[in-house]
């Protein structure tokens, strides 16, 4: 054995050792149940996790979101605004306690958020997609609400009558208005609409008081509507004629979430005074808690400027309800009990849970987004799908590998087995390369496909070499000369053919996203490393014997 060869052998053996050292954390982390390691030794769990091969969202589960940043005034989104929105989202995600988020800019006005391992899409949507603009409004008086209800009923009734030519019927409907008024009184008397409807001709009531007919309860400055009627009510409110009868200083706004009363679910429609009394900009901290009745609340603290404003607002309106509005929805409208200055409390509306209060506290603490965002894509990969993908990827990889290994050994005998060694080392090196600190590539499902495909492409180098050696042998050359000539002449072909694959992989990486990038990475690394494994390593093995009488090929 020549000295140069010896050096190369040492290099190869070193590379193998380094690969195993690099891959040890991944093997330790993924071979057992990560949850068990976490319970037994949390510090070891985190140290292993940090050094183990990173799995893509499609394999370990998680949330992926694409957000469109919109300028509220409809103009172009500047990169400054994009940066600010990104920073705000980062703060929110950190404060909420989601680990290892990946938040990136995409194009000039989009933001991509990846939350590996996190699978609660609804919370993620609220946490990331809501503007979190806090506002305080007073409510309109009971009399004003009644008047508005009547006005809306009358335009709706007229609208619904259109098309019915018989004027007589319309007149008849007007005649009966006394009775329906009586029914309304019953309704206003906080009786259930069912009772009211039973007392009078239900059909007639729906015709003349279409909006009131949808209401289940009317209590002071808000209407309560069952979920069955919620959608129709929403549509009614969008009709231009209905919009036209709502005075400018009145704002109709829905509650944040439905409430369950007995066996029925309600949505609440509030009638607000349009004037914004105060915003949440002077808020300095927020914390979820329970009130005396064990209901979830968010306690907040204002700066001195805000405290002064808030004290004057609450001092003037003791006994009146104050609506707490977040992003165009009324969270709740509790009655002002006393003058409040620095420390306020937000009662959570509907059947809120403490985790919803926590989410709101995080949003308020992080502050509102400087621009609106629209969720263009929201993807969540659940744990079952992730596990299933890993399982299938593993099976496919092992079977694919065995097929090729077996074929090569059959077809090229001992030489084929040498190629197989190169093949296995290639996979080892690709995986090891991915966990090199600084590289930290992510393995995705298409990435696994890339590795499997690399197997096919890697053997191509050896096929080229072996076919060439066979050709040389046929011309009557000695084994030694044939091997050398085979390698020599195949070298340029192999380089040329691999470079073309690398070029396509490069553009896939540049223009691809998420999983596709994972594919581009494993494919190009695999092809690149195969130059080393399929050319160098096999040659070293062939050169270990100096004289060949015959070659098993």
């Amino acid at each position, binding site marked *: 054995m020549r000295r140069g060869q010896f050096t190369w052998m040492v290099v190869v053996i070193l590379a193998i050792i380094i690969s195993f050292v690099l891959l040890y954390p991944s093997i330790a982390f993924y071979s057992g149940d990560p949850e068990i390691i976490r319970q037994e030794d949390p510090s070891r769990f985190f140290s292993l996790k940090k050094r183990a091969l990173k799995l893509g969202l499609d394999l370990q589960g998680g949330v992926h979101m694409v957000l469109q940043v919109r300028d509220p005034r409809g103009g172009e989104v500047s990169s400054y605004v994009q940066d600010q929105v990104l920073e705000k989202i980062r703060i929110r995600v950190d404060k909420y306690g989601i680990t290892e988020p990946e938040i990136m800019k995409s194009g000039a006005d989009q933001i991509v958020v990846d939350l590996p391992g996190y699978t609660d899409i609804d919370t993620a949507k609220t946490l990331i997609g809501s503007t979190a603009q806090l506002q305080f409004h007073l409510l309109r008086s009971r009399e004003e609400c009644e008047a508005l209800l009547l006005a809306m009923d009358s335009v709706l009734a007229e609208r619904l009558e259109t098309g019915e030519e018989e004027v007589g019927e319309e007149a008849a409907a007007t005649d009966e208005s006394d009775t329906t008024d009586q029914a309304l009184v019953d309704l206003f008397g906080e009786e259930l609409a069912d009772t009211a409807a039973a007392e009078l001709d239900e059909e007639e009531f729906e015709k003349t008081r279409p909006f009131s007919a949808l209401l289940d309860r009317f209590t002071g400055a808000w209407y309560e509507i069952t979920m069955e009627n919620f959608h129709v009510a929403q549509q009614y409110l969008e009709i231009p004629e209905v919009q036209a009868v709502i005075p400018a200083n009145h704002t109709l706004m829905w509650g944040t979430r439905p409430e369950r009363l007995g066996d029925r679910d309600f949505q609440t429609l509030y009638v607000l005074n349009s004037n914004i009394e105060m915003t949440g900009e002077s808020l300095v901290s927020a914390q979820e808690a329970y009130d005396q009745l064990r209901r979830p609340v968010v306690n907040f603290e204002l700066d001195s400027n805000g405290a002064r404003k808030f004290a004057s607002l609450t001092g003037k309106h003791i006994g009146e309800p104050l609506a707490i509005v977040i992003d165009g929805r009324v969270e709740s409208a509790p009655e002002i009990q006393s003058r409040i200055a620095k420390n306020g409390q937000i009662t959570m509306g509907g059947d809120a849970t403490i985790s919803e209060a926590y989410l709101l506290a995080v949003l308020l603490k992080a502050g509102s987004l400087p621009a609106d965002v629209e969720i*263009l894509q929201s993807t969540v990969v659940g744990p079952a*799908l992730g596990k299933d993908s890993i399982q299938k990827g593993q099976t496919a990889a092992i079977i*694919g590998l065995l097929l090729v290994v077996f074929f090569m050994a059959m077809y090229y005998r001992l030489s084929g087995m040498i190629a197989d060694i190169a093949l296995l080392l290639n996979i080892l090196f690709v995986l090891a390369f991915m966990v090199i600190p600084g590289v930290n590539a992510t393995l995705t499902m298409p990435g696994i496909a890339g590795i499997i*495909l690399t197997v096919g492409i890697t053997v191509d180098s050896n*096929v080229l070499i072996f076919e060439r050696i066979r050709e040389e042998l046929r011309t009557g050359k000695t084994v030694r000369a044939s091997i050398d000539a085979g390698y020599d002449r195949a070298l340029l072909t192999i380089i040329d053919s691999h470079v073309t*694959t690398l070029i*396509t992989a490069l553009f896939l990486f540049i*223009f691809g*996203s998420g999983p596709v990038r994972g594919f581009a990475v494993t494919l190009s690394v695999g092809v690149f490393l195969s130059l080393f494994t399929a050319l160098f390593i096999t040659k070293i093995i062939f050169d270990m014997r100096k004289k060949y009488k015959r070659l098993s090929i």
Partner: protein
Amino acid sequence: MMRIIKETNINFIGSRKFSFMFSGLLFSLGVLAFVLIIIGEANLGIDFTGGAEIIGSFENPVSVDELRNALSEVGHGKAKIQSITGEGFENSFMIRVQGSIESAIPETTFAEDGNIVVNMVAAEGDELGDLLKDAITSKFKENKFTLDSTNNISAKVGEKLTGDAIKAIVFALLGILIYIWIRFDFRFGVAATIATFHDVLAVLGIYFLLNREISLLVITALLTLAGYSLTDTVVVFDRIRENLKQFRKRTDYPSTINMSINEVLSRTIITSITTLSVVLTIMVFGGEVLFDFALALAMGILVGTYSSVFVASPVLVEWETRAPKRVK
């Protein structure tokens, strides 16, 4: 020594009339598919059209028809419903609704006669998934439906993806043309690019004929097969270049090229077999996510092998016959 094929002397170049006709057919099919994709008429995945996909499991068995009935109540009776099996999946389904044009949420409006009419209006991807989920949970109240995965995509994301995919393909082809131009010469570069372009379009065309969904992963596969088919072409070209140096004066151009193809034929076939076998493994064992990806690759390997023999090299011959450069 085990050999699949012995030394051959098949006249590949002689049959180029037929192969050009066949390739022309594949090529036009691909162009047709490409045009249809651009105008949005092809069977595109939700990556491109927008839409929603949800995967979830019922506590107790449910038939596809029952599920379809529940979905048709919200106007999505045509949703793609697929039963899923595997570890952790029991009574599980994947439901996919494509495109924000067909996708709909009910909207109540008034008809002329005063009746309330429920219309279907376009919904953005984000609302669509919730609509499907709500429709299922309200219909199967007794049978708990647990969601495992969802994917809601707005059509706006698709526009960007389509643009990126086209850019990737154009730049990759240009890069390849330049590389081969430098390494071989201009004619080889053009011939290789034509062959590669042919392969990408052919697979796209076959995909279109099979009416299989064209997803982002399928586009990725198209690019990969561009790389693969090139590898094949380059190997043949390399041998042609080598043989042209030695035989330039003694033999004529077509037969040198034909000889070169024959010489590397065994390598071409063996590599195709090994690569094809791993791709078929992905198809069989890789699951739903990778099936279409692997299918596109498998077709790409077949077409790529064919094109390096029957397209790239004959183009060189045709060019040389029409505008002689090498043969004196």
